[in-house]
């Protein structure tokens, strides 16, 4: 198992204390979560059963552009044959092994991308306004509700945006190499709420 003490988040250069003076926005990083990318075919019953057995999620009933919580795991729809499983820190390798065992001989792919991305949580009454500065998606609670997610771009970075609480709490999954850029963008964009 990895030693998180020596790991470094992609947002290591961003001073999160600076967000403390921003009104109506709480911004934190959910560091070192496990991220597993899952590929497989929904019309393959064996594949769906293996996943259901392993993590208790029926992929066939997970709608496009939504995510679901199953015990400690969050499963996001990424595409018709692609999902993202987020696990608590240090559980990804175990889950990866479990899945790979269960999926032996089944056309699928389980890939650890935990170091390749991180999660930024943005909440507060100005959270939506902040994200709207760089996001073309309609974030109004009538349109983008708790449990919804969308792959889109925030300013010029590709993100996976999800709603934890309608209009008030969001999570953004960002690729490692773009994280610093996005962190700086969020800092800059939130200056009007200081």
């Amino acid at each position, binding site marked *: 198992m*990895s*030693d998180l003490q*020596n*790991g*470094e*988040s*992609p947002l*290591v*250069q961003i001073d999160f204390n600076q967000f403390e003076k921003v009104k109506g926005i709480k911004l934190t990083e959910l560091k*070192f979560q496990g991220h597993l*990318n899952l*590929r*497989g075919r929904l019309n393959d019953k064996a594949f769906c059963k293996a996943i259901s057995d392993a993590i208790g999620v029926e992929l066939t009933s997970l709608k496009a552009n939504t995510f679901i919580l199953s015990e400690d795991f969050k499963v996001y729809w990424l595409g018709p*044959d692609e999902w993202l499983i987020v696990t608590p820190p240090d559980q990804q*390798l175990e889950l990866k092994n479990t899945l790979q065992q269960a999926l032996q001989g089944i*056309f*699928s*792919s389980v*890939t*650890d*991308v*935990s*170091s*390749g*991305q991180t999660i930024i949580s943005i909440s507060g009454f100005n959270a939506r*306004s902040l994200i*709207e*500065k*760089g*996001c*073309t998606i*309609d974030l*109004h609670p*009538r*349109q983008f509700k708790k449990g919804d997610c969308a792959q889109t771009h925030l*300013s*010029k*970075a590709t993100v996976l945006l999800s709603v934890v609480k309608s209009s008030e709490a969001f999570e953004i999954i960002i*690729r*490692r*190499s*773009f994280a*610093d*850029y996005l962190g*700086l*963008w969020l800092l*800059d*964009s939130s*200056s*009007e709420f200081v």
Partner: protein
Amino acid sequence: MKNNRLQGEGRINRNRPLNFIFNGKSYQGFEGDTLASALLANDVHLVARSWKYHRPRGILGSGAEEPNAIVQLEKGRLTVPNARATQVELYEGLQASSVNCWPGLEFDFLSINSLFSRLMPSGFYYKTFMWPKKLWMSYEHVIRKASGLGVSPELPDPDRYEKTYAHCDVLIIGAGPAGLMAALAAGKMSARVMLVDEQSEFGGSMLHSNETINGQPAQDWVSDTCEELASMQEVKLLPRSSAFGYHDYNFVTINERLTDHLPTGQKTGGRERLWKVRAKQVVLATGALERPLVFANNDRPGVMLSSAVMQYVNRYAVAVGQEIVIFTNNDSAYETAMTLLEAGLKVIAIIDNRINPGSSMADQLRSEGVKIIDQSVVVDVKGSKRINAVQVMSLQPGGDKVTGSVQTIACDLLAMSGGWSPVIHLSSQSGAKACWDDEKACFLPGVPIQHERSAGASNGCFDLKNCLSEGMLAGNEAAQQCGFEVDASIQLPVVNEVIFNRIKPLWLVPSMFKAGRGPKQFVDMQNDVAASDIMLAAREGYHSVEHVKRYTALGFGTDQGKIGNINGMAILAQSLQQNISETGTTTFRPNYTPVTIGSIAGMNLGGELFEPVRKTAMHGWHKQEGAEFENVGQWKRPWYYPRAGESMLDAVNRECLATRNSVGIIDASTLGKIIIEGKDSGEFLNRLYTNAWKKLDINKARYGFMLGEDGMVMDDGVTIRLEENKYFMHTTTGGAAPVFSWMERWLQTEWPELEVFLTSVTDHWATAAVVGPNSRKVVSAVCEGIDFDAQAFPFMSSREGLVNGIEARINRISFSGELAYEVNVPANYGLQMWESLMAAGEQYDITPYGTESMHVLRAEKGYVIVGQDTDGSVTPVDLGMDWVVSKVKDFIGRRSLYREDCVREGRKQLVGLLTLNGSDVLPEGGQIVEDPNASIPIPMIGHVTSSYYSANLGYSIAMALVKGGLSRMGETVHIPLADGKVIAAKISSSIFYDADGEKQNV
């Protein structure tokens, strides 16, 4: 100083006087004033010089349409060119000056142009200055000084500009009677509403009208309605916001001015915000603009639009004149006359081109002693910097000629109304084709193409009662289209009905002169286009309205024809003996009013956020070590690591020598990395790459070329077989995203039967390449669980192990020809791995090196870089790399390699170049010729693609694409430089170092 302020209330705050400076003189206005109203209150009518003739000009209008009162605001970094004084809200300490005058407004040297105006017809510049061609540049210099408007700031803009996306059900543009009513209706239906208006206050015409709503002044209804709207949760109100562009798919761009109305010291935060709005439905309630009348000297200060006069009196409590004459062809000016009388000002006469224009107001005015002179027109005005009289003549029956004697009426202000033009700009931008209405004598919005509708004056409805009912209907309809139900409780306010008499169009006022003679009758004041210019254009054969626009400049400038276009088109139609719908209108394009570049560029302008900067896990370390960085795609990569006192060449030489003689280390994390998994992965690679993959052993690596279907090299890299059905592909740094997308495209669209999944892991792995004869010692000290014996872990193979207890993958591959290992760990542990390698390498003086040394080292070995030594027109055969191209299987681009053009003689081929003088380093991109003394143009036979000084070799090396290069070995060619010098070089093999490849196999 004369004070023109009236007793009436207006909407100014007399408790808040504001000091400002115009053309160096101090004045005072009040909160609520615009710069224009404050100037008029101080009796300043002369505010500008015109663009071409430098004629004195006064304030004509009261809003976005203003063509004359264009000012330069503030100085230095904060200066704003071409602000319309009618739209500038007054603030304490405001400084403004006139544009277009030199040396000053009162005495303008170039007003001499006016005397020669007869010699400066439309197309004057084209006709006069285009020959001889050589001199155009110097003519242009003089013309620019003589014409043009304000001055661009020369210093960087210190302001911040915000941007935001927004969505709504109903976007309502314009908060006059129709817009407010539409917002109220849609808002009550719970629709998400945005209501925007360019002014600081909502209300539009109701802010200065005398009308009543529900028995109360219209202003009261406005404030009640605004209050109600503000209390609705889903209604967003945006004052000081101009919707300036209506684009495809109901995408509307809005510029909100956040701080322009504040004194310089009180501005905080962003200056403007660009709203990028997607609306399900749009209601255009943009109102109408009054047209001027076209008669001689109609541009003199003291000639104003009738509606502007009313607005200055009622809204700003400013007497713009004391003895006023009104000239009109429709009823609306009669309201102005009533307003003036109520304000205690003297209306001497109303000149009306219609026969007996009897309305209830006309009777009332007559009873108050106002003389109504019907069937007559103003043919000229007297006075230069301010009018002092108008000249009136009667119309002959039929109305197209004047008759009788000239009657001179003394006055200090002429209020004119040529009728109203609905503001159809946004409707037209949305794609609707404007249509001419003869009855109303104006263009009306065309049949909607997008989800929009017009209401109120912008729809040709010019009375309050109907504006309100059209607004309500539009609001209801728009929200219904979004799925909301009409709120039955909403009621139309009660408004008195007014009966209007029909307008009698008067496009060009007849005069005693022949057409095109006599004093200028201005059509477009901002561009100094007179009626005679349009007639001349028609005579010279310009029949399309778009051509006439460009020939005469009609409709250019900051006002974009808001004042002049309709009159101009009508005059053109008359000249061409067409009707107006045949002549048509020019296309309305964004922007409705000028928008700052800052607003469009936004907050990311020029800074580090303009474009994403991608960083590796070791970026901070590189920075700390003083690396200079190079942009590679969006990535920042260390370029070289200069030590104190070192030049770039010094550093690169040191890095290259250290790497070949001991050990170097480079951050290779930016290379694209893709997991390819599934039982058909080998087959897929076979189709993707030029060489064969199915027989590659597990944990073995192979170099591959990817071609476009046209046979040209697209990307290259090393791919490793991890498992029976799983491969790990490397792409070039810049190729990562396009190659991934390219692979997905083939899988999804052409070969869905292949069982292959792709997953990008570029960001997951951090990679350090440890390179050089001592690399094995360094890597083996850090990596656990791997036998680094040369035989056990041979070149082009891959092993899994641990680094600091973290899973790691070590690939023994080389891009330098040296013994080399690429160490990969999950990027969260990348820095730790890097530091461990540095520590283990200390005893070998391990040297970090950047992309420049990497380029030199690979060039010494003749390894190509796709995108540098190739340019999309180069096949693997051209590179002399046929060995990587399979003869037995199909792959993308294969058929193209046998196209006639790809097999012809004389294609450019990759070769090495050695300068005869080894210290000469060729410039990359240098053109290669056989005989530098041949007559110009010298035939070029190729170009230099890569060129470096090689410290390891002690002389310079280069790679080049040369026609038939592979059969020219040993020939001498020449590279002429820009400075006239010519460098001679010998064509050689492109492998300059360790030709047998022994160093990487130790």
